[in-house]
């Protein structure tokens, strides 16, 4: 039966090639615009660590009080040195790390080579197991290294390539800001997008690579300055990096792993208790106003998905809806023009379901053709995203099997939906009336 319907549909489509082309073009462009913008949206709204994101939490402490809150009553989105180090010492979560962004220079050992600027983070040892950071060689450093402020470093595979030609460099030393550091681990192409562990400073997405990680307190000791944002509610009383550490300025990010609801509740209590202690000690003149968000909530709170991306997706979906309304109108006209044919078929005994099958087949063929065109146009769209959008985001948009399958599926389902009402009307054609009028 299906081959018969296919035959009927193809004949009908051939009879008005202009109209058929118009419907296919409309579906193709509508689907391609939606899928191209969706590919970008999918890329930026993805969960960077899906197996663990609900267990990772970002605490916020209200150390500035009512005058420092923004219009939503939110406390600062980073921490000052005092709170961050106190919370590290208290060690109330299963795993946790304070961190700040650094941008030191690495001096190559070979004479005549220019120093290179690298970016990275000063973190605690638990950073690596907490975020399941993959290692190519070696590992992160130990808790003892944290305490001893050891001169150790974990480097990216890219920096390892540059300095050691990609060989296992564990145990070798590199010169950072004039001091020697022992390599303990080489990361295995770790480039999570968004940079969820320090959204405040990365702004979410980054084209760069995190080249070096070194122990937090070591970096503080040798005075490797903060390369991220510093926000102050007052001018620091002392100058320099030491002054920053003594100031209420916020510049440190913090992340903690809490494995179940009980742990989260306990940690919340700890934060509130900490704020109450500070209130009693006279440091805070206001009641506790802490936040503890899991990673997905935190990414949402920090508006990691650019609003441009969402607006584009919505507008493109609007375009798809217009294309479907357009297709519905044209199918309706086309189907109803064949009322006499329908009348004859019905009079000769065809069931309503047969009419449904026939016309939905026709709509499905248009959807399929539109989907194929949509595939090509989506390919063009995703390829051209790179010269239209900022590089950090454009680089993430990819054409893969699931996107292609989705493109075809959306095209066919959407066209079938558009064809439903016209088909319904076609099935309601009264055979007697049609035969009589002829």
């Amino acid at each position, binding site marked *: 039966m299906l081959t018969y319907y296919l035959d009927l549909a193809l004949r009908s489509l051939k009879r008005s090639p*202009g*109209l058929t082309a*118009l419907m296919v*073009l*409309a579906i193709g*462009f*509508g689907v391609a*615009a939606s899928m191209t*913008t969706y590919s970008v949206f999918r890329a930026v709204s993805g969960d960077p660590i899906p197996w663990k994101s609900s267990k990772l939490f970002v605490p916020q402490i209200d150390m500035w009080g009512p*005058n420092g809150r923004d219009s939503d009553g939110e406390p600062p989105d980073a921490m000052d040195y005092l709170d961050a180090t106190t919370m590290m010492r208290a060690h109330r979560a299963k795993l946790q790390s304070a961190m700040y962004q650094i941008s030191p*220079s690495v*001096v190559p050992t070979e004479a005549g080579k*220019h*120093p*290179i*600027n690298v970016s990275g983070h000063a973190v605690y040892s638990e950073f690596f197991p907490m975020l399941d950071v993959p290692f190519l060689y070696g590992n992160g450093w130990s808790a003892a290294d944290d305490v001893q402020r050891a001169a150790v470093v974990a480097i990216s595979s890219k920096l390892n390539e540059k300095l050691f030609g990609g060989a296992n460099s564990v145990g070798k030393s590199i010169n950072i*800001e*004039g001091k020697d550091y022992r390599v303990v681990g080489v990361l295995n192409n770790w480039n999570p997008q968004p940079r969820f562990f320090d959204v405040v400073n990365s702004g979410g997405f980054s084209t*760069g690579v995190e080249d070096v990680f070194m122990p937090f307190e070591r970096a503080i000791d040798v005075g490797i*300055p903060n390369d991220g944002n510093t926000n102050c509610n007052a*001018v*620091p009383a002392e*100058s*320099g*990096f030491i*002054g*920053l550490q003594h100031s209420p300025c916020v510049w440190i990010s913090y992340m903690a792993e809490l494995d179940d609801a009980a742990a989260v509740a306990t940690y919340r209590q700890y934060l509130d208790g900490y704020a109450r202690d500070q209130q009693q000690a006279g440091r805070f003149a206001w009641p506790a106003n802490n936040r503890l968000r899991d990673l997905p909530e935190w990414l949402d709170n920090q508006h990691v998905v*650019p*609003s*441009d991306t*969402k*607006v*584009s997706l*919505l*507008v*493109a979906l*609007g*375009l798809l*809806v*217009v*294309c479907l*309304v*357009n297709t*519905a*109108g*044209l199918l*309706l*006209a*086309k189907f109803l*023009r064949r009322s006499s044919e329908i009348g004859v078929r019905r009079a000769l005994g065809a069931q309503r379901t047969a009419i449904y099958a026939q016309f939905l087949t026709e709509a499905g063929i248009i959807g399929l053709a539109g989907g194929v065109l949509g595939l090509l146009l989506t390919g063009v769209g995703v390829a051209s995203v790179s010269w*239209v*959008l*900022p*590089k950090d985001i454009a680089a993430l948009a990819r054409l893969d099997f699931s996107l292609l399958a989705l493109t075809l599926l959306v095209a066919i389902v959407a066209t079938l939906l558009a064809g439903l*009402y016209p088909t319904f*009307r076609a099935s309601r054609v009264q055979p007697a009336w049609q035969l009589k009028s*002829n």
Partner: protein
Amino acid sequence: MQRTPSIQIRPILAALRRHKAGTILIALQIALTLAIVCNALFIIEQRITRMSRPTGLIESDLLTVQSNWVGVDADTTTPLARADLLALRQLPGVQDATLTNSYPIRGGAWTTDVRIDPNAKSGMATVTQYFTDDHALPSMGLKLLAGRNFRSDEIGSASRDSYTPPPVAIISAALNGKLYPDGSALGKQIYLGMKPSTVIGIVERLQGGETDTDSDTYADYTVLLPIQLTNYANSYLIRARPGQLANITRTVPQLLYKLNRMRLIPEKRGLRTFDAVRTQAYRRDRGMAILMSAICVILLAITAAGIVGLTSFWVGQRRKQIGVRRALGATRADILSYFLTENLLISVGGVLLGAVLAIALNLWLGQLFELARLSLSYVLVGVVVLLLLGQGAVLAPALRASRVSPVEATRSV
């Protein structure tokens, strides 16, 4: 006998009632198209306005070079930077050069709060601070409206962590207007910290370093301070003699590395002409404008094609009726105006609904993404565009209809 074609609305309405669903669909399509196109055009216009904001600089013949000292004690960078500047200014093809911590639309800035009353609790505005020297005005090409430039003996140096506001400052006219709306700030004091700075000069315009939309409210509030920052990734702004920009883009890094190897000019954004700075600064806005334009073009094309397709169908369906009308004395103009009027009626219905949808969509987007309020002129422009588009699209099938011969009335279908 000549007569003007009379437009009869009642028979058109009667005919449309027989194609109720088709009519509603095409009107709906016009309405949705209008709603989306209005908002897309509005977004495009907003982005173009942002992209065309002047920096206040003379942007041609301007080169930016970021140079970070590596393995050099921060306390010793000031004389090194001075030596760089002296050599740069003597390089053939260079007109002038200055050192600054940042420059307009660089994508990043050092901002702070400014007050005119030292006891005020909160600042009057957020300002972008440029830490630079007495060559900033000629190198950037800024226009001094009042007062004077820095003198070379006023240029100090300080670490970024320990600086205190200098005794003198040059501010932008926009900041002048914000702080002293009733008159000139010249000779008056502003507070960027605890210590006052006296305003010695006012420049016509100088944009801040940030380009994200959050910074739009304070984009033109800027202050120039006569301090060379140590311990900071400073940039040189170098003005080339006319036609020499390409040359010095090549010679400047060579010169700098020859002067001192202990430096780093970052691969990315380390060496940029100002044209490149502008392109990179507004990449996101340009991308959004291009995307929205593409969507507008596709939408209008599809809607126009849809109207052509549907009207062609209706014409084909009604050949017999048209023939009868022609046989009964209707002129070609009558038939033409019938279809034009029919389309106009549908379109008017569509754009009325569309205008409401456009505003609703704008309000919704505004709620979600802090989009500005759509100005009604966009809706009006959109209405006119869609009505014209409808009439244009219907013209070809309507002309075909008008050429239907009266003989058709006698043919059976």
